């Protein structure tokens, strides 16, 4: 296959991958951020302690996370059709990608938010701040570097999943690697795809690390890290 044949294929594939990963990341962040924060707040000793809600949310997240993506994609077909009107193509792939990534990102958010020093929560409570204030002014900004790192991890994972989405005709780089590299022995095209994926993933990782680090640089901790206290309802 000549370069002039490959180049439109590749650029279309790049665009498809970007499209799927971009939208599903956006949805995963919008859905996973509140879910992760809720997992922390409703936990025992949390600001919105609710043991039942916490157990239920935790279970749903666990099940969704441990589901192999390919099965999730098949299982969600009816839902996908209901949302997008089809089960084939880029738009259709976004649905299972996003739904798979929401619990994934939510757990990362949960871990990040738990690391916020309980003393900061207490300080804002002592100023008369309510739970919403605490979420907006403490939990999210203080865990931001870690949230950005979590987003990077999610994007990289989504690029991996999006390769599988190729099997529902969604296109993308993974799809090219399978169709041309595996099925038609276009080894050259496959290696180019692999190289592009490697570069894209490195770039994303680099950008994410850079963003997280530059936020960290201004901060670090506000004092000698005290023992981590559970966020308490007061």
């Amino acid at each position, binding site marked *: 296959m000549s370069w002039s044949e490959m180049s439109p294929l590749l650029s279309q594939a790049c665009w498809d991958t970007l499209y799927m990963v971009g939208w599903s990341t956006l949805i995963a962040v919008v859905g996973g951020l509140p879910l992760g924060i809720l997992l922390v707040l409703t936990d025992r000793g949390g*600001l*919105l*302690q609710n043991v039942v809600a916490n157990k239920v949310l935790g279970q749903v997240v666990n099940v969704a996370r441990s589901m192999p993506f390919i099965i999730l994609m098949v299982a969600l077909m009816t839902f996908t059709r209901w949302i997008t009107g089809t089960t084939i193509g880029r738009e259709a792939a976004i649905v299972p990608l996003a739904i798979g990534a929401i619990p994934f990102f939510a757990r990362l958010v949960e871990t990040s938010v738990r690391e916020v*020093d309980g*003393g*900061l929560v*207490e*300080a*804002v*409570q*002592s*100023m*008369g*701040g*309510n*739970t919403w*204030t605490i979420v907006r*002014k*403490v939990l999210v*900004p*203080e865990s*931001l570097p870690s949230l950005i790192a979590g987003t990077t991890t999610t994007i990289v994972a989504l690029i991996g999943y999006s390769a599988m989405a190729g099997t529902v005709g969604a296109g993308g780089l993974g799809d090219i690697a399978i169709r041309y590299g595996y099925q038609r022995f276009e080894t050259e095209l496959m290696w180019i795809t692999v190289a592009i994926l490697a570069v894209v993933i490195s770039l994303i990782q680099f950008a994410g690390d850079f963003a997280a680090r530059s*936020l960290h640089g*201004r*901060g*670090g*901790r*506000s*004092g*000698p890290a*005290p023992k981590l206290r559970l966020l308490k*309802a*007061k």
Partner: protein
Amino acid sequence: MITTTGLTKVYRSRGREVTALDGVDLHVREGEVYGVIGQSGAGKSSLIRCVNLLERPTSGTVTVAGQDLTALAGRGPRAGKELRQARSRIGMVFQHFNLLSSRTVQDNVELPLEILGKSGKERSRKALELLDLVGLADKAKAYPAQLSGGQKQRVGIARALAGDPKVLLSDEATSALDPETTRSILQLLRDLNRQLGLTVLLITHEMDVVKSICDSAALMENGRIVESGTVSELLATPGSQLASALFPVAGEATGDDRTVVDVTFHGEAATQPVISQLSRTYNIDISILGAAIDTVGGLQVGRMRIELPGRYEDNVVPIGFLREQGLQIDVVGQEPVLLVEGAK
């Protein structure tokens, strides 16, 4: 200004119960610096956290500036609007500063004002004014990670003052600082107390803190206040643990048949004539084991530990003589043992 009555706090965790506060009656007058001292686990932090209801008391009431906070608390675990408003009028500073690392110094000080819904202009005016007050005007744009411990605590204090509180609570605000910085932070608290008429309730395990800035003090043990009063009252209380810890004199009896007496002089009471009179009148040899003069709570106090020959029974008359001179006398080993717990 701050009154607690019958305050109790019982922590329940996994079936175990810990009584951290056991009927605490605290009374802090307006405009004073009140120190609570006690060993680790005595319940000091529980007490101060109950004052702004960061910790819900199990029973008892808390009144701050005439407002019964326990009545505002409601039954649920979350703080209602009224309680949050009341909290915004009580400043609090913390041992580990608790500054937001994601915000500049100025933005940290503005945080309480954001919560109060003040406009951006008003916030920055107030924040800069407070940073000036604590001597950090040039650090407004720095991040907390770029400051020293003492500077962080100054920011913590500025932030606590942002809502114009009448009351400042401080839980071991200087415990993470070196002695030099501790002194400057204490001085700042003292100045703010004087300049702004701020009532300060502070928790500490360092006697020096009480000694240098407190008007009144309380000693906590096992969730109870075992001694309390103004510093001069305490110093005038025979056998007061706080007084002897505030102002220790050393010296051991040189033999079994000796009586050791601590003599405390307040103000201008002249020392020499009393001792020599005693010696002359009763014809006894007095040895001085130790003596010190110090300023405690702004008062000049002298203390002398003397030794009289013979047992306590033999010295009832000379000791009575000393008491008649208006001196405060503590017979070591006779009255409650003088513990020097908590004094470092």
